């Protein structure tokens, strides 16, 4: 066990955990931020996507010990009222079915659009291929990303 000081959604947080603990479980079990989801634990599904700085990361394989003081953003901190352009586009297109994968999809899409505000279809596909949606909402996800990009 060790004490870690984290910067999550603009707030300082302190936890006392095993240094190998993935950020996913720190968020879910210790900080009650459950919007970040567990899907596979091996960086294959994207359900656990967060932002480390401005980069989308799979939190299930990201040990707390390597995070340092880099700011973490989770779905709960992406916007104050759910009005980030990507979230709004998701609501416009009523993307979700079960909804379980969608926070990871949104976090991945938000970081991607920040780096590439005007993506082609192929670029969207390449960027989103690491995020599985078992319900098969891919056509809506893609349409929502385009809406968000169009602003």
């Amino acid at each position, binding site marked *: 066990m060790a004490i870690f000081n984290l910067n999550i959604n603009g707030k300082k947080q302190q936890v006392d955990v*095993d240094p190998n603990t993935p950020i996913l479980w720190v968020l879910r079990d210790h900080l009650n931020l459950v919007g970040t989801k567990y899907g596979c634990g091996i960086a294959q599904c994207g359900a656990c996507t967060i932002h480390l700085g401005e980069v989308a990361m799979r939190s299930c394989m990201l040990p707390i010990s390597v995070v340092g003081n880099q700011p973490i953003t989770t779905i709960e901190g992406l916007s104050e009222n*759910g009005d980030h352009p990507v979230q709004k586009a998701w609501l416009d297109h009523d993307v979700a079915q079960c909804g*379980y994968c969608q926070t990871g999809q*949104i976090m991945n899409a938000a970081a991607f659009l920040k780096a590439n505000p005007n993506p082609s279809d192929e670029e969207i596909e390449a960027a989103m291929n690491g995020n599985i949606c078992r319900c098969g909402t891919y*056509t809506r996800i893609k349409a929502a990303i385009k809406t968000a990009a169009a602003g």
Partner: protein
Amino acid sequence: MAIIKTTYNRRSFLKTTALAGGGMMIGFSWLTGCQPAPEAGLEIPKEWFEINSFLKIGENGVVTIMSPNPEFGQNVKTAMPMIVAEELDVDWKNVIVEQAPFNTDLYTRQMAGGSQSIRQGWQGLRMAGATARQMLREAAAQAWQVPVEEISTEAGVLYHKNSDKSAGYGEMAAAAANIPVPEEVQLKEVKDFKIIGKSRKNVDGLKIVTGQPLFGVDYSRDGMLIAMIAHPPAFGMKLKSVDDSAARNMPGIKDIFTIKTYEDDYERNAFDTNTFPELVAIVGNTTWEVMNAKKALRIEWEPFSDYSETVNSWGGKQDVRIPAGLESTTAHITKMAEMAAKPGNVLRKDGDPEAAFKNAAKVIERTYTAPFLAHNCMEPMNFFAHVTADKAELAGPLQAPEFIEQTLSARLGMPLEKIDIQMTRMGGGFGRRAYSHHMVEAAVISQKVNAPVKLLYTREDDMTFGIYRPAYHATYRAALDADNKLIAYHVKAGGIPESPLGRAANRFPAGAVDNYLAEEWAIASNITIGAFRAPRSNFLAGAEQSFLDEVAEAAGKDPIEFRLELLERAQNNPVGETNDYEAARYAGVLELAREKSGWGQEAPNVFRGVAAYFCHNSYVAHVLDLTIENGAPRVEKVCCAIDCGIVINPDAAANMAEGAIVDGIGNAFFGAMTFKEGVPEKNNFDNYRMIRMSEAPRAIDVHFVQNDIDPTGMGEPPFPPIFGAVANALYKATGKRSYNQPFLGEKPVLG
């Protein structure tokens, strides 16, 4: 206007205490809190007046409607309340939706399965709204001293035209709550619907995109411990011994012990499937600590011997033999081919198929196979349980609480009144969560450690726990005469451990061919199976629709024309009396898909396949366009036509169909669970290939047949025929027929 007696499920319309606090256990409504979404801008009423168990009205006119059935992405949580709101005649903007407590006395069928939520809920939901509207009208009539017939309503307001009086529902709610439930009510005409048939957004949309707690895995309680299980690594194995000396003292670990999910002599029901009767449970403070301790366990497993168990399927008792042995996919393939070569159990025979085949000008025979499939719900199996001496509280994702409550009651030795099951939003179901052994496991673990517990399966636990879609095999034969007319048709299908055919022997093209034979067989196995989106149909449709495509080609006919001719025969002069489809509606979806896809006008280098199927009371046809890009097939577009009667929430229904299409393409291309010496060869998404965005269709067009037929199934019917459409388009693109799923697997899995 239809006048309906309210005797149907009358208890639902009587006042109850259900709305007071979310079920019989007050104060246990963490997930169902009735806070409206902030953007709705609704004022929460100071006082609620309960009209019946489906709805309550606030003094300010805001209405809370209970959604009775579990939600797993099929969007019933929006659609079911829309039906109530329609008949209540309220403005949808003033509606708050809550997940109803589990109480079948009040809400009858509270289940997600068989594409039946809307179909079976339809009448009761309409009546819940209509009786409330009637009571509001009565209250207004009494207040204004006018005949009730003269009171009209619109968007949550009561009017008396002659005296120019009006009042919002909120103003009359207190009085309406004391009006006796009417003996009969009027239902709206379909043409007068204002909410049904107009797309409404998912009521949980904002919570989903902001990551608020909704799912079973999100459930939390003070003092809650985390539990995991370890199960045998192979089918055919059981627990021998556990050495927990290394794990027991690891940080955060509270206890490690073995559990039996059911008592030894328990007579299970058909949904109590218990793949691994004895498990190791690991309980600790946090998920990561429990995961690590689980890895540190040293467990010995041993093969089990043949055994039998009694399955009591709602009164029909059956002894089921579970064979010993460590099974492999390669052996399965050989065994299925052997069984297929022997005569099967005849399900239906029309005319004289033997003679017709003998006299045929052309006989076509083809064999199709498909592997086991894992459901792979995005949210792994999990459940919250808090069992004390005098009550059991459960919360989690499950499709069919009514299948498991008796099981739990028997296991805990606790009467049903002391058990409360809360239905959380499910991160997918696909049939898997109709089997809730994990709920019982959570309860047994909670009882043992005497604390609230959340049981979580790892992805690996989830994927290797069985309850799979069975492996299937089907051989089809068709006889054409000299005029290329289909004169005989023979299907012989089987699977491990069940046949896909059964009652589907009476589906198309049965009834359209004079000489018809359907046979089936099955091979026992210790690999457990369960319902998987459109059970059995999800294999049959693909096989049959690929076969018909090949027969049409052999007959020199357009594949749609060929099917329509057969359907015309079934319509005008059906063979046999037990045909399980309406030929005209079946033809209707094919015609709609033909029109909307511009059949026969595809662009160069676009390869088209068509398929149609009837299941779960609905009809679906797909036209699928495929191109070859860098040597790999890419689905460009799917044009889908559906006849499921009245569509409640069209955009959400289209979303469901899109999902079913993507799911079907993924499983047709890649889906497979294989075994070696009893061990599932895939245990996570690095080796179980799931469809991803770059493999999904570029566009999906969904069209609904417009009619006034009461709604039928929607979640499952678009799934089965997509397998056929994929196979037929692949043939056009490559010149080669696909007989064995998955069509594009890294290595062919079966055959």
